[in-house]
């Protein structure tokens, strides 16, 4: 595993999407997308609103029905149920951080670590926290908050907790939907470091609007527009693409101004 991760520039892709199409009553939200995610890479999916980014994530994780093919480690995922795909190591976060607000941080992570527990273990009480949980709490910087209810965590820390839940669940394909939405500057930097840290042995895809964050952290970028891939490649390569500048980067200034105004 380490070998593949280190053998750059082109390790075998973990997750491969081929000609994926999602149809909402005649409206093609995703129209024939090809995508490859590799271990060791932080792969950004960008594009204007309605470009199909989240719908693509929905398709990969089994929520949206699609045609085409999505494979992980060579195994076809299409038609599998959401929880089966998750068990295969494909984890996702949501636009608004979704954690179990009435449970503590430790409980959140313990649940995330336990998808393969048998009924007898489930029906007993937790005696000690699994090691992966304590380790992950350190990794996401929440070791001081083990007994805090997730619902009272600050916005940014909820996002980290949600990422942490994927980590303890042993996901090796992480699909993160706007992980820095609403974060302050320092939190963004920490998140960036966290992404690279976890990408070392995993494939990470990030759906994001924030261009600065993308530039600072992307190993690879795919630009979606109108449900199709507009451009793909390295950050510089994509930024230089005139079509991308036209449809997306041009609008990103507005987006950022709006964000700043809201903050």
């Amino acid at each position, binding site marked *: 595993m380490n070998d593949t991760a280190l053998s750059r520039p082109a390790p075998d892709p973990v997750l491969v999407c081929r000609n994926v199409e999602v149809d909402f009553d005649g409206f093609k939200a995703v129209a024939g997308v090809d995508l490859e995610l590799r271990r060791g890479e932080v792969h950004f999916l960008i594009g204007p609103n309605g470009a199909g980014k989240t719908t693509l994530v929905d398709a990969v*994780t089994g929520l949206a029905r699609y045609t085409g093919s999505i494979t992980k480690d060579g195994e076809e995922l299409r038609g599998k*149920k*959401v*929880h089966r795909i*998750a*068990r295969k190591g494909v*984890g*996702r976060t*949501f636009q608004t951080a*979704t*954690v*179990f*607000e*009435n*449970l503590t941080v430790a*409980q*959140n992570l*313990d*649940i*995330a670590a*336990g*998808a*393969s*527990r048998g009924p007898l*273990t*489930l*029906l*007993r*009480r*937790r005696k000690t926290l699994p090691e992966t949980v304590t380790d992950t709490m350190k990794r996401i910087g929440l070791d001081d908050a083990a007994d805090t209810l997730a619902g009272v965590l600050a916005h940014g820390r909820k996002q980290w907790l949600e990422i942490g*839940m*994927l980590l303890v*669940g042993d996901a090796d394909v992480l699909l993160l939907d706007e992980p820095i939405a609403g974060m302050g500057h320092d939190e963004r930097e920490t998140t960036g470091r966290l992404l690279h840290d976890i990408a070392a042995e995993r494939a990470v895809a990030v759906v994001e609007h924030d261009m600065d964050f993308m530039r600072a952290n992307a190993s690879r970028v795919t630009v979606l527009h109108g449900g199709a891939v507009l451009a793909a490649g390295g950050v510089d390569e994509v930024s230089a693409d005139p079509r991308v500048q036209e449809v997306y980067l041009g609008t990103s200034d507005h987006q950022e101004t709006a964000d700043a105004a809201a903050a």
Partner: protein
Amino acid sequence: MRNFAQSRLGTLSGFAAGAAVLFGLAPLVLSGFRLGLFAQFICYAIVAVGIGLAWGRGGMLTLGQGVFFGMGAYLMAMHLKMADAEFRSGPGAVPDFMELAGIRELPAYWVPFASPAFTIAAVLLLPTGLAAALGLAVFKRRVKGAYFAILSQALAGAFAILLIGQQTLGGFNGLSYFRYFFGFTLNDPVNQRMLYFITAAVLLAVVALALQLRRSRYGELLVAVRDAEARVRFLGYDAANVKVVAYAVAALFASVAGALFVPVVGIISPASIGIIPSIMFLLGVAIGGRATLLGPVVGALAVAWAQTTLSEQFPSAWTYAQGLLFVLVIALLPGGIASIPKLAGRVRAKNQARTLEATA
């Protein structure tokens, strides 16, 4: 305080106190009649514990618990009728109400209920199995929320109508006139007291079981499913299975309560299990605090008591009170009575903060 309540010592002393009230105080202060009435209320409380689990912890609004309550009750009632008939006229005899309805042959599905062991197994397994099957069918297809609530309600309605049409189950009149309970005569005050003790012990056992479920990893998972089902599925769990377990356990509790209700009250009829009685089971749970362990118990007992006491003096006012309780508790106190201390604490904290500000 919270820590004490959740420690082993706290749990044990809680149960000791509960047992002292149920086994010591209640039989001491209550007359035989009132004790029997209390046993009836305890049956409602047992149903409430299950609803607290499925609804309070699992978020499933079970508007059809009357179905499982009724199943447990009818299964037990069939055994009691068989036992009566056997005692009067020997094995294979037809229960009295069938004789009157002109039914001379014992229907085949009645036959196994001559066996006490079979009856108890049926009470424990049949409703639980039905709930599991129904839950699988419904939750796997992600029918939930309001859809589930309406379906469970329609189920209660359909079940009651179905029962009314069954002449071999007493039809609209239901089954009544039970003389013996596992060989003991039911009209003997000593045995009635024994029945009360059994009911109370079952309540304690059910509460202990619910407590274990709540504190287990499963209990945490159930809350997780309630609050963010999608998140749980995207973590690799089959959320439907998690819900099915809680739903089936709630059905089990309701069934056991129904089985006890029959010898305690002496009658079961479709009137006790239709749509309205099923919803009424929820009132006590909501008032007591749906997500807490003891809230549903206290709430169910309180509502039953209030109904008995108030309805005779002010029958029309009681209906208003029921309606108002639903509205006010749900709208203003969704956590039920159990949340009052917490709310009071918050108010106090706020006042303190205000005082601090003022002095600063």
